[in-house]
């Protein structure tokens, strides 16, 4: 932020050389390289070499943008559309919501795991949490927000050496933020559609939809609400512990932020679910004993021996 500070910047997250400095103290220079770049590509005199080694002796930070996408198989998610062949029996799924929180975002380099400090934008990112939002309030997504967000933007510590060969993050809201008063929380933790008040926390993942060809028409909704369950309260009011935190750890190996996108694929998440049939609670809203939950939670990598298949990379 200070005019005298030099910053080595990663172009879209990869440790690309930013040689060819502009004047120190000038505003960040945005360079179009044909990719997504809300965050901008900033060049400056803090040299990052081709090999990714940071040579600048001053305070060097590197900006990284992780792109996300929501898909149903190969098709991009969009409110208002109907997606065929969802689940084990060819469900036709019409979306009503597709949002999730991530936190504790890290990238992997040769030196190991490196934390990403999220840019505090007052909208999509707060402390270590970011909200990914693929609904636009159209169609059945009428309880959502018109704005969408498909990226996580942050900064790597000074001296980080590339290349990036993987990304890791947790699905959900960290404990300390999950159980604070939602009415007082800053954005993006102040959206009532993602509050889970009776559980005293948030819906980490909310994918709502309607099954257009249900076996029993009366139960056509299919909701996926995942958050911490089995929580206990303390004397002063807050939640003290949750038996089922339900924060999924995700790792995508070989992920290069410059070239790859994190894809949240509903078709994969529901690949073991028969969405045309539902029991008392429509879909899986993390209720204990709901037979529709185990395959969904397994798909998120929650539970002993489970490996997540919801997130993949392209």
């Amino acid at each position, binding site marked *: 932020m200070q005019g005298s500070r030099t910053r080595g910047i990663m172009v879209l997250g990869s440790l690309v050389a930013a040689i060819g400095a502009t004047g120190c103290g000038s505003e960040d220079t945005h360079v179009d390289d044909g990719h997504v770049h809300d965050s901008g590509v900033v060049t400056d005199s803090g040299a990052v070499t081709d090999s990714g080694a940071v040579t600048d002796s001053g305070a060097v930070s590197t900006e990284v943008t992780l792109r996300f996408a929501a898909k149903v198989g190969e098709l991009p998610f969009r409110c208002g559309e109907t997606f065929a062949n969802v689940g084990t029996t060819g469900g036709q799924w019409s979306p009503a919501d597709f949002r999730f929180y991530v936190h504790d975002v890290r990238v992997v380099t040769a030196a190991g795991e490196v934390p990403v400090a999220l840019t505090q934008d007052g909208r999509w990112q707060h402390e270590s949490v970011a909200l990914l939002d693929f609904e636009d309030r159209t169609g059945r997504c*009428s*309880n*959502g927000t018109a704005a969408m967000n498909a990226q996580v933007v942050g900064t790597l510590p000074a001296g980080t050496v590339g290349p990036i060969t993987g990304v890791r993050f947790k699905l959900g809201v960290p404990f300390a933020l999950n*159980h604070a*008063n*939602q*009415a*007082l929380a800053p954005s993006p933790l*102040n*959206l*009532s*559609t993602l*509050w889970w*008040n*009776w*559980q*005293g926390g948030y819906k980490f993942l909310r994918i709502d939809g309607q099954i257009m060809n249900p076996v029993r028409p009366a139960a056509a909704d299919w909701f996926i609400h995942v958050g911490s*369950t*089995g*929580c*206990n*309260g*303390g*004397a*002063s*009011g*807050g*939640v003290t512990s949750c*038996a*089922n935190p339900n924060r999924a750890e995700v790792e995508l190996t070989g992920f290069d932020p410059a070239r790859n996108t994190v894809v949240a694929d509903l078709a994969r998440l529901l690949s073991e679910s028969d969405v045309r049939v539902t029991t*008392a*609670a429509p879909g899986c*809203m993390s209720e*204990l004993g709901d037979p529709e939950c185990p395959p969904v939670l397994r798909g998120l990598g929650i539970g002993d021996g489970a490996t997540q298949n919801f997130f993949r990379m392209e």
Partner: protein
Amino acid sequence: MRATAIRWLLGMSLLSSGAPGCGGEATPPVEAAEPLLTIQPPAGFPPQRLAPDNPYSLEKARLGRYLFYDRRLSGNETQSCGSCHQQSRAFSDGRATGLGSTREDHPRGPMSLANVGYFSALTWANPVQRELERQALVPLFGERPVELGLVGREAEMLDRLRRDRRYQQMFPRAFPADADPFTVANVTRAIAIFERTLVSADSPFDRFSRGDTTAMSESAQRGNQLFFSERLECFHCHGGYAFTDSVVSASSAFDETAFHNTGLYNVDGRGAYPSASTGVRDVTGRDEDMGRFRAPTLRNIAVTAPYMHDGSIATLDGVIDHYAAGGRTIASGPNAGVGRDNPLKSGFITGFTLTAQERRDLIAFLEALTDERFLHDPRYADPFGNER
């Protein structure tokens, strides 16, 4: 504030004389038509413990009263908090289970709000609901079940309030430090402060306790003895000034929150309750929490029928049958089972026998917990006069 509190302590009669102005203070003068809502503890009650960021003010309490009864606080503008929490029923609704603004059934019944500011846990069986301000978010924004149905519509709701000329005055007065007082948090704060004013402490039992020996009938006095006896054990869970064992006050040094399985069901012989509502287990997921519910206050219990979390007992007589049996037996149907044999049942539910006269006495005592002034106090009434 002090003048306000003193006026209230002196009694309602002063209200009619018209409140005096505040002698040049910044606060607007008290209008005679506006009630003096207070959280001043009555005799025998401790001061309430307030949320640290939500101190009492009369302006907040008045705003909260309007919001409590305002149907604009539901998605389709058909219900307010007061729809299910009706003053004449001690702020319950007379139904077995609640019905939301979108006609969705609630698995449990609305609880009385009498003395709700003293409850250490809120609602029937949720150990994580401890603060009125936060609990209000459940009926406002909850989706399973939908109650007031405002999920995703908080901006729309606040806009409705912002457009109202009365609220354009009331919100800034209630939250003078806020540049924009129209927030969800402030809505919950004002409602919580109004709820804290809902203090019931003037039943015949209270007057009797304060020394008016004519306040309770002979029969009710005998029932009083029975209620507080080790033979019936009622008071273990329904004791104290709030007639519940989950209480908190400004002087509380320790957490006093309890949930009990009373043997109301035993559908599988291992203690199970019907899946629609299994008590604390619904939140914690622990099997040992099956069937554990908070002991509701017994104040005004005669006007809050039907009883238990699911309204499954119609009368006080039926409730006494349940406890006298040491747990209810349901002979047939999907919920059949012998509650008396529920292995998770509280140790205090052992059963008792009563003579017909003793039963009448016990019911007379429970009826002596009805606070007619509370049920008809104009300070708590719907300021919209049901017009909205």
